């Protein structure tokens, strides 16, 4: 009986969702603000990648909130895991030769790729969050391949704090120079070059360092505990 009711509810839910999704015309411009970003974004912010100009410039304050959420999650995980009782140190089984060599070969390339993604966030797809996640996946590879290695906690905490501090200080400098938080006070430069778009590349590099070190330290905390 309960199963029949559950199946009926699921069918009603599926029909409702598919009917309402069928009403949405995908791919056609809907809002005025979207058109505004596409038409005026490059002119106003200097960033060729419109997504970046929205994330860091038009909605920069939201991004600061997002970074704060990630920061609190990492801190909370660290606090929960370090209070639990440490188990006995188990014997670490070394990785196979193929994995060891492969991870040592790939790790610097992944780091360079992640840095490229967040440094060129205003020119090509990607940005601080994506680059940071790629760098953290590189550290995950190191944990898989070279099992006795650990990240330097002091260095990762320093990178994390400096990243967050840079973001807030640049926002406050905008308040000092122009009167509102996160104002793009630096010169825009020529669009489609590396040194353009004012504060956007600086903020995205700070976010890249912050997200990368945070996600790497989350993995480090979990592996230490397991």
């Amino acid at each position: 009986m309960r199963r029949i009711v559950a199946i009926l509810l699921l069918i009603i839910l599926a029909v409702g969702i598919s009917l309402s999704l069928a009403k949405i015309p995908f791919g056609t411009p809907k809002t005025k603000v979207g058109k505004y970003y596409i038409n005026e974004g490059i002119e106003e912010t200097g960033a060729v990648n419109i997504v970046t100009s929205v994330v860091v410039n038009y909605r920069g304050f939201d991004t600061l909130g997002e970074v704060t959420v990630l920061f609190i999650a990492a801190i909370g995980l660290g606090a929960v895991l370090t209070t639990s009782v440490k188990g006995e140190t188990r014997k670490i089984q070394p990785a196979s030769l193929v994995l060891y060599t492969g991870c040592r070969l790939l790790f610097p390339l992944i780091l360079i790729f992640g840095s490229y993604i967040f440094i060129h966030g205003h020119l090509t797809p990607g940005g601080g969050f994506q680059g940071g996640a790629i760098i953290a996946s590189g550290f995950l590879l190191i944990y898989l391949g070279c099992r006795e290695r650990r990240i330097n906690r002091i260095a990762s905490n320093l990178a994390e704090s400096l990243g967050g501090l840079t973001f807030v200080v640049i926002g406050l400098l905008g308040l000092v120079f122009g009167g509102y938080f996160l104002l793009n006070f630096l010169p825009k430069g020529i669009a489609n070059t590396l040194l353009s778009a004012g504060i956007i590349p600086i903020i995205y590099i700070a976010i890249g360092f912050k997200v990368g070190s945070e996600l790497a330290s989350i993995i480090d905390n979990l592996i230490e505990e397991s």
Partner: protein
Amino acid sequence: MIFVFFLIILMLTAAIAASIFRDLISAVIAAALVSLIASILFYFLQAPDVAMAEAAIGAALTAAIFIIAIRRTERYEE
């Protein structure tokens, strides 16, 4: 277009497999496959920014965190 439909069917299969596998490691691998195909589909929908984040976080980091948790608990579901 046929390729996209093939990917969608593969993604649905992986999602159903993730929910019915008794071996939790296999279920995590199937869930990571769902994320990986989702990132390819995001790329086809012209959202490369989202595709990158989905591939790095959904396919790599989330799967790793689940596997670490499974190593600490039980591998097989009752």
